[in-house]
């Protein structure tokens, strides 16, 4: 209180506003989490007691209430669909992360360590996928795959994700690259190591934090991508965001709260671990 009294009014207002701002950011998420435990199946706004039933239902441990099954708007046909979508998302995110990390890192090394004529072109090219609205890239890939006669599915989604995630990895690895001392690599070469050995024993270990950060970002964005996936996924390759999107489109149902809460929980854990690791490295 003493501290507060010393502050001028304007500073207090600013603090008050900032705390409101954070409430504005987190209230919607808190709301979903709260609702996911509400027993009322008809009106979520009315608290009807604590329950874990919605979690049991989405995990297939419990059948949904009869009135929901019978209504024409029942849509979460089975837990299998949800798990299938989750499995697809994980396959896509893992493959995409691997591919785009390798390609993005190679490009970052090439642009940082070599001088060549097309350097400016490549620098611009690597920035382009990040500035292109995702809907444009999505329909471009859709037309391209369909005209090329490719079957839409996991493979096309993985390719689609790689095109823009490579740029994200590139940016992060490049930032790390800029902070490195090239003298170490020169020393390695002077001591008789060839390019490959220098790359593996000198450059790669130093780049590792950047590579890991880029890979983490790629994984998270791939798991959450909706727009590009939406256009280039086939009928049997629904991902988690596309699945939830179609659920939300068909109306508000208590099960969505439970799924959304699980997603919030997992993403917060991943982000917290990632940022914590990064903060610890800096110390």
């Amino acid at each position, binding site marked *: 209180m003493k501290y507060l009294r010393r502050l001028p009014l304007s500073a207090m207002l600013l603090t008050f506003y900032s705390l409101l701002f954070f409430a504005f*950011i987190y209230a919607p998420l808190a709301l979903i989490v709260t609702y996911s435990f509400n027993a009322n199946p008809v009106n979520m*706004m009315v608290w009807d007691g604590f329950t874990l039933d919605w979690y049991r239902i989405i995990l297939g441990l419990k059948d949904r209430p009869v009135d929901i099954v019978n209504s024409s708007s029942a849509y979460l046909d089975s837990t299998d669909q949800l798990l299938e979508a989750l499995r697809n998302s994980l396959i896509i995110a893992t493959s995409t992360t691997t591919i785009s990390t390798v390609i993005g890192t190679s490009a970052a090394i090439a642009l940082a360590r070599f001088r060549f004529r097309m350097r400016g072109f490549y620098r611009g090219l690597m920035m382009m996928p990040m500035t292109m609205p995702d809907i*444009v890239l999505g329909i471009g890939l859709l037309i391209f795959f369909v005209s090329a006669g490719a079957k839409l599915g996991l493979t096309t989604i993985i390719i689609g994700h790689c095109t823009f995630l490579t740029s994200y990895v590139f940016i992060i690895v490049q930032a790390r690259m800029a902070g490195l001392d090239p003298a170490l690599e020169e020393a390695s070469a002077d001591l008789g190591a060839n390019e490959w050995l220098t790359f593996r024993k000198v450059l790669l270990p130093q780049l590792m934090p950047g590579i890991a950060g880029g890979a983490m970002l790629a994984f998270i964005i791939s798991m959450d991508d909706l727009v590009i996936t939406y256009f280039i996924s086939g009928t049997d390759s629904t991902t988690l965001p596309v699945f*939830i999107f179609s659920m939300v489109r068909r109306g508000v149902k208590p099960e969505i709260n439970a799924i*959304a809460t699980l997603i919030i929980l997992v993403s917060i854990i991943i982000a917290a671990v990632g*940022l914590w690791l990064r903060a610890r490295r800096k110390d």
Partner: protein
Amino acid sequence: MATPHTRERLFLFGLLTPVTLLLGIFFLLPLAVIVIYSWLMPGLYGGVEWEFYHWNYGRLFGWADGVMEIYEPIYLKILLRSLSLAILTVLLTLVLCYPVAFWISRLSPRWQVVFLFLITLPFFTSLVVRLYAWLLILKPSGVLNSTLLGMGLISEPLEILFTRTAVVIGMAYVMIPFMFMPLFASIGNLDRSLLEASSDLGAGRVQTFFKVMLPQTMPGVIGGSVIVFIPSVGNFVVPDVLGGAKGLMIGNLVEQQFLSARNWPFGSALSVVIMAVVLGVMLIYVTRLVREGRAS
């Protein structure tokens, strides 16, 4: 035996080939395909006829032949609405984030880390989930209306959901982290002594803000605005979830052309327009950066 020089070239070639193939085939080529499609004739049952056809743009901008393709001012209106929506989103996020960025910049480094973490955290949560939350808040029987009705501030529910207001709120909400980070980078680097000097010389708060603080933090303001504007223009997810028919945007129009109307050439023409807007903004931004780089 290979000389060091050719070995180096080979190494460079190996590093660049994958990215060249990936972006050449799956990024540049699809973009070119969109541009080509936008000048082709739509087929009768979806698909295209390989014939030069400029009425796709005519439908949008007004020179349609009136027989095969009809000019509808609604398309142009939707385009302008999307642009104004993107600009509104930029302004709203700017006004929301600026004071908070200033507040955080004056905290101790330890608290700065905590609050910056709190700003970025929602970015890692699913976009659809965050929009779904606003669906719960804004619907007629939702949290906002129950609260306002309960407090007696309104006598009947506000109809916010499925209007443009809902789209702007949702868009601003998901774009906040993108605006915040560049803004904070600028405000965090602000030289505090300049503000003190300004007030010592007798300038009021308002004057100090507009004459000293805002010009000093302009790079962050512009950077954040560009980063928010670009994904806002063609966004179709936010209007889809929160906008309803009244909040239809150019992104939804493109989606319809591809997934329900099956008029790919017209959809491509609309996308080319989105692309042109984005490239235009980027071009102005980059030239500005280059010019400033030279000036300093």
